[in-house]
């Protein structure tokens, strides 16, 4: 640091000194200030190019080809934007997209509500609080495939869920063998609940940290000024938690739009196409029907659509983070 300060225009003068003093070799060249500071950047960019840019460009290229993977690549031919028109005019694509938004919307809403309530309870002091917190955090750490298999066992017609529900269902004269995975609407809810079970942990964690970051002095001040519990909640706690709520909504929505595992493992998109999400639709077009060009075009279209959403989400995150910093300081 001291040396950098001693030669303000580091580039030319310092470079010259090193050039004069070097006995040759890469190490000396890399050690120059103007080169050294670029090293992390170059490494990150290299990974970016390799892992993101190359596959992206390939996808873009394939999306312009008429190519089915069950035929040799030599028979593929360039056909312009035909794949894009095909995707956009495929009703199934739009249905899958709508279904994805429906699943994500309902699941995220439930996760927010349940996570918020649990966090509110766990923010109080009571015996065994830590144990409950640990238990509530477990689902998030379970591998999604395992969650899928567990729920497929829970949901089978003669499975534990129906066993538990049977007395209630019979009371109303219903068939106790609810077909969780083969009735179109029940199957949709089966997937939503599996997602809620796994990801409420995350919203719980986010809200719990939000609650514990609330300055206790503000609540004390509100009590002295005569506010009751509900008034403190609505007028002080909830407004102060707004940034955290936005963060939870954005993070969970981004993830939920990619919902895939549950619909593969529980229902394989069925019955019919009633649980086919857009990610699953894409996977099926490519890996079941071998429509590589079509699949590539669909994924580019989704990328564009979701990018807009994600950028809006990131804008919200940045804005709320600024609010947090301003109000915290």
């Amino acid at each position, binding site marked *: 640091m001291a040396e950098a300060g001693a030669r303000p225009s580091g580039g030319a003068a310092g470079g010259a000194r090193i050039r004069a003093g070097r006995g040759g070799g890469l190490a000396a060249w890399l050690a120059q200030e103007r080169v050294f500071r670029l090293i992390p950047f170059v490494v990150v960019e290299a990974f970016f190019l390799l892992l993101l840019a190359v596959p992206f460009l390939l996808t873009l290229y394939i999306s312009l080809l008429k190519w089915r993977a069950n035929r040799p690549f030599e028979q593929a031919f360039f056909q312009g934007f035909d794949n894009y028109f095909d995707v956009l005019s495929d009703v199934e694509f739009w249905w899958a997209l709508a279904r994805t938004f429906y699943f994500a919307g309902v699941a995220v809403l439930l996760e927010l509500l349940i996570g918020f309530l649990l966090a509110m309870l766990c923010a109080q002091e009571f015996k065994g609080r830590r144990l409950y917190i640990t238990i509530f955090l477990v689902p998030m750490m379970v591998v999604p495939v395992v969650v899928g298999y567990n729920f497929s066992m829970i949901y089978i017609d003669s499975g534990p869920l129906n066993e538990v529900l049977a007395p209630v269902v019979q009371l109303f004269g219903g068939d106790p063998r609810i077909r969780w995975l083969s009735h179109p609407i029940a199957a949709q809810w089966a997937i939503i609940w599996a997602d809620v079970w796994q990801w409420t942990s995350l919203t719980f964690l986010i809200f719990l940290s939000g609650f514990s970051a609330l300055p206790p002095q503000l609540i004390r001040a509100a009590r002295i000024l005569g506010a009751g519990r509900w008034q403190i909640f609505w007028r002080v706690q909830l407004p102060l938690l707004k940034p955290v709520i936005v963060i939870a909504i954005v993070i969970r929505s981004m993830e939920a739009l990619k919902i895939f595992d549950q619909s593969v493992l529980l229902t394989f998109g069925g019955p019919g196409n009633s649980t086919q999400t857009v990610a699953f639709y894409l996977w099926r077009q490519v890996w079941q029907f071998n429509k590589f060009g079509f699949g590539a075009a669909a994924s580019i279209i989704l990328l564009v659509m979701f990018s807009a959403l994600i950028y809006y989400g990131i804008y919200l995150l940045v804005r709320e983070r600024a609010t947090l910093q301003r109000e915290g*300081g």
Partner: protein
Amino acid sequence: MARILLKDLVKQFGRVTAVSGVNLEIHDGEFLIMVGPSGCGKTTTLNMISGLETPTSGEVVIGDQVVNEIEPGERGLGMVFQDLALFPHMTVFENIAFGLRVKSVADEEVRRRVLQAANAMHIAPLLDKRPAQCSGGEAQRVALARTIITNPAVFLMDEPLSSLDAKLRLDMRTELKHLHERLKATFVYVTHDQAEAMTMADRIVVMRGGFIQQVGGPLDIYRRPANQFVAGFFGTPTMNFLQGKVETDGGRLRFRAKSIDFLLPAGAGPGSGREITLGVRAEHVLVGKGAQPGRVTLTEPLGDETLVFFDYGGDAPLVAKVSPELHLSSGEAVTFGLDEAGYHLFDGATGERLN
């Protein structure tokens, strides 16, 4: 009526006893300051008055009513916190209005009273700002305005000036005193700063380790501290303490310590042979008058007076306040004496006052 009575007040946190049986009467309209080092129980006592802490045993009486079971918001108090606790998501206006909003006061009335409180605290131009946009002094006034708007009969203040810089703190002291005179309410103020207590209080309560050490007016406490702890806590520089023994010397009592001895005034409390601590404030150490020899180790000019630290052969150097005209430098030999009127005699073991 805002007389406050604390009866045998005890607060325990698990095995720790923060407040051990406090009995105190706070008069209506009084500016009472509780002072003591951190962990002495002063804030816990204040929180029990406010209702934010529930006493383990004992009673808090406000007016004629035992308020132990009454919610903080219904005790008719206002409180200013150490970190002010302004609501960061509300404008200054809404912060001040909060106490009225939760009581569903009509908008018109809220507006009128907020403006009134803001004018009283000279913060009317800030009403649309957020607390984070206010300076330290402005935020302080907002917190006060938020407190006065509900017209509480009792103001509780928990080190409200500790986050301000030195200059602003002095200004705010004056302002708080004016506020007290204007409102004629009961102020209970907690601080660890003895100078703050001396300058503002009608009465001071000195606490230590959960017990009250002394209750009295600022000058009483300064002039007749009840024990060695209080004597050492009040006054800058800290009082000089000399450990020694009382001996009889031809019908009079003599205080004998390491390389120093003095005759005690006639009628001084302790009997012969007793181990005592003699306390003398810097203004009662008379440099140049007396026969004891010493050597200057350090001088601290304060402008209107100068502090002189000198070694006389005892365990710790003595400090004296001298006129700034008296130029002394380190290493210089001096003679000194002690002013009998300024003797404070404390028991060597318990620290209790003896004279």
